[in-house]
């Protein structure tokens, strides 16, 4: 099976900044692949290389086994859903969706039929005559999707497509996008800085940091076994013990990560238990989130860790307020050893 997309030792440099730094990876056909990372981490630069808006300084980008490094976007079987949707303001919805077939020379009646089918697919059948400016954010998003899918691309690139939508709509669209991808069997490459989005939708996630891939794994593995401190913090919002702190807690200088929901908060003088690790500190803040509260605790070693305390557990901690001395405890096996 030929890879849908392959990066071979790709680098892209802007002035002094290595936007992409010797990156290699393979995306399988039909895969939902997420590129996750903070802004400036290189994920969008990678997407632009796949779309053809930019070319690599070194290395090769292969689509379907073919080196496309010098192929312009209009000769690639790849389509993009843009972050700002990039709908043509001077065309109505139907004309926007029909644009791909139009520039490929499909007749007016034929391309309007195709466009109406695509609009049905994204449940916008009745909106064909309206202008993009008359649509809501969610509707524009769907038009952008229909416009990108009408050419039947082998790969669909999505650049933070849900970034501009409110939370509820975003969750609905996540489910819809995932369903659409399953039905159409197209390879989706999904760029996002929202780890929840990446974990809930993708088959595999590449975590980008400073132009490199920190870890490429399935969501469950990424969350439960982060390879690096960056992944542990960015994906799992985990607490990370560096070498020195790990040494003082466990006696071994191997860094480890521990997620907030695995940490329990105890009074300062709670007795030690077997196979439980602990660290003393004082409470900095308590944020109430409904089902649970997030306790920020400044360890005596200096790091600020957070613990997720359920409402049940919080009842026994009633008398502990900001500034109180506490002990954070977690089962030894919940700690994940990190490579760096």
């Amino acid at each position, binding site marked *: 099976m030929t890879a849908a997309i392959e990066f071979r030792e790709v680098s892209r440099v802007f002035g002094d900044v290595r936007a992409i730094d010797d990156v290699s990876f393979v995306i399988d056909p039909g895969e939902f692949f997420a590129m996750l990372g903070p802004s400036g981490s290189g994920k969008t630069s990678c997407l632009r290389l796949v779309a053809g808006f930019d070319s690599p300084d070194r290395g090769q980008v292969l689509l379907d086994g073919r080196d496309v490094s010098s192929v312009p*976007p209009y000769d690639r079987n790849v389509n993009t859903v843009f972050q700002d949707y990039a709908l043509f303001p001077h065309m109505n919805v139907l004309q926007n969706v029909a644009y791909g077939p139009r520039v490929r020379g499909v007749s007016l009646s034929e391309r309007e039929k195709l466009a109406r089918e695509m609009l049905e697919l994204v449940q916008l059948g009745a909106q064909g005559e309206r202008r993009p400016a008359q649509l809501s954010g969610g509707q524009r998003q769907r038009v952008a999707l229909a416009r990108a899918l009408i050419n039947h691309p082998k790969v669909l690139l999505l650049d933070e497509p849900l970034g501009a939508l409110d939370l509820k709509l975003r969750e609905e669209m996540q489910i819809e996008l995932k369903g659409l991808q399953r039905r159409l069997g197209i390879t989706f490459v999904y760029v996002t800085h929202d780890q929840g989005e990446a974990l809930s939708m993708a088959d595999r996630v590449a975590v980008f940091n400073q132009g490199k891939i920190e870890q490429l794994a399935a969501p469950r593995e990424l969350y439960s076994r982060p390879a690096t401190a960056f992944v542990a913090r960015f994906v799992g919002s985990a607490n990370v013990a560096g070498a020195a702190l790990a040494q003082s807690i466990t006696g071994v200088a191997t860094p480890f990560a521990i997620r907030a929901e695995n940490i329990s908060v105890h009074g300062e003088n709670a007795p030690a238990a077997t196979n439980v690790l602990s660290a003393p500190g004082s409470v900095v803040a308590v944020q109430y989130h409904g089902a649970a509260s997030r306790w920020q605790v400044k360890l005596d070693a200096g790091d600020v860790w957070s613990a997720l305390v359920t409402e049940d557990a919080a009842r026994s901690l009633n008398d502990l307020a900001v500034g109180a001395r506490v002990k954070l405890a977690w089962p030894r096996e919940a700690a994940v050893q990190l490579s760096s």
Partner: protein
Amino acid sequence: MSVRAASTFFYRRPNWYLALLLVPPLLWFGTVYLGSLFALLAQSFYRIDDFTAQIVREPTLATYKQVVTQRANIDIVLRTLTMAVAVTIACAIIALPIATYMARFARGRMKAFFYVGVMLPMWTSYLVKVYAWRLLLAKEGIIAWVFGKLGLLGLLEAALEAPGIGGPSLSSSYIGMFIVFVYMWLPFMILPMAAALERVPGSLLQASADLGARPAQTFRNVVLPLAIPGIAAGSVFTFSLTLGDYIIPSVVGAPGYFIGMMVYVQQGTAGNIPLAAAFSVVPIVLIFAYLSIAKRFGAFDAL
């Protein structure tokens, strides 16, 4: 009343605040601009008594009838209109690549250089430029000299022999006048066009290419339609400035009258204010007609 009390007064009554800001400029605009315009329009409905050369202050369409029925007057309108259309089209064609480069490709110093370069000529005196052009276009001028050095004098002479637009030299032909008009109004086309193109998000061009459009298709389907409001704005300038100008036609070009010259002559030496007023209504009517045609073709849809 203290400053604080006055501030509170206006803060609590935003409409008063707005009125305070708007009434003086609106009064000025209303009286000086619209008032004088309506006074002019009113004049055009008077007529001049041919025998006494006195203005007859009774409402009549006689003066307009004179404009639209007398052969010489129709010629003046058509001559001016043709020149204005030709100048506008030429400006649009020349400005498009320049504005595209300025808005979409030039960066930093290059961009500043182009913007200053386009505006710089507008900072010099209009009259100096017109007279300079007369020298450039003269029979012994530098343009004829360059044509001569290149061995292309025959070409220039052939152009000047063209019926209607030719003449003894560039500076005394409609071709020369056209060149000066285009030179003079080009910045008024480039700047709004560049402003319109600057507002086109780069992602639209990427989206077009992404969907399979080759650069020429992207230009025709996306860039050009989105530049049209800018072209329309620019063409209103070039069109109306050409329609109303009376200096360029009197310094450069063939002896035929233009609307602006007619207004100047009629209200000055001839003392025929009603006819001058009626002539000055012609560009207003033409521009309204132009705008409604542009609107029908969707020039302002993308605004």
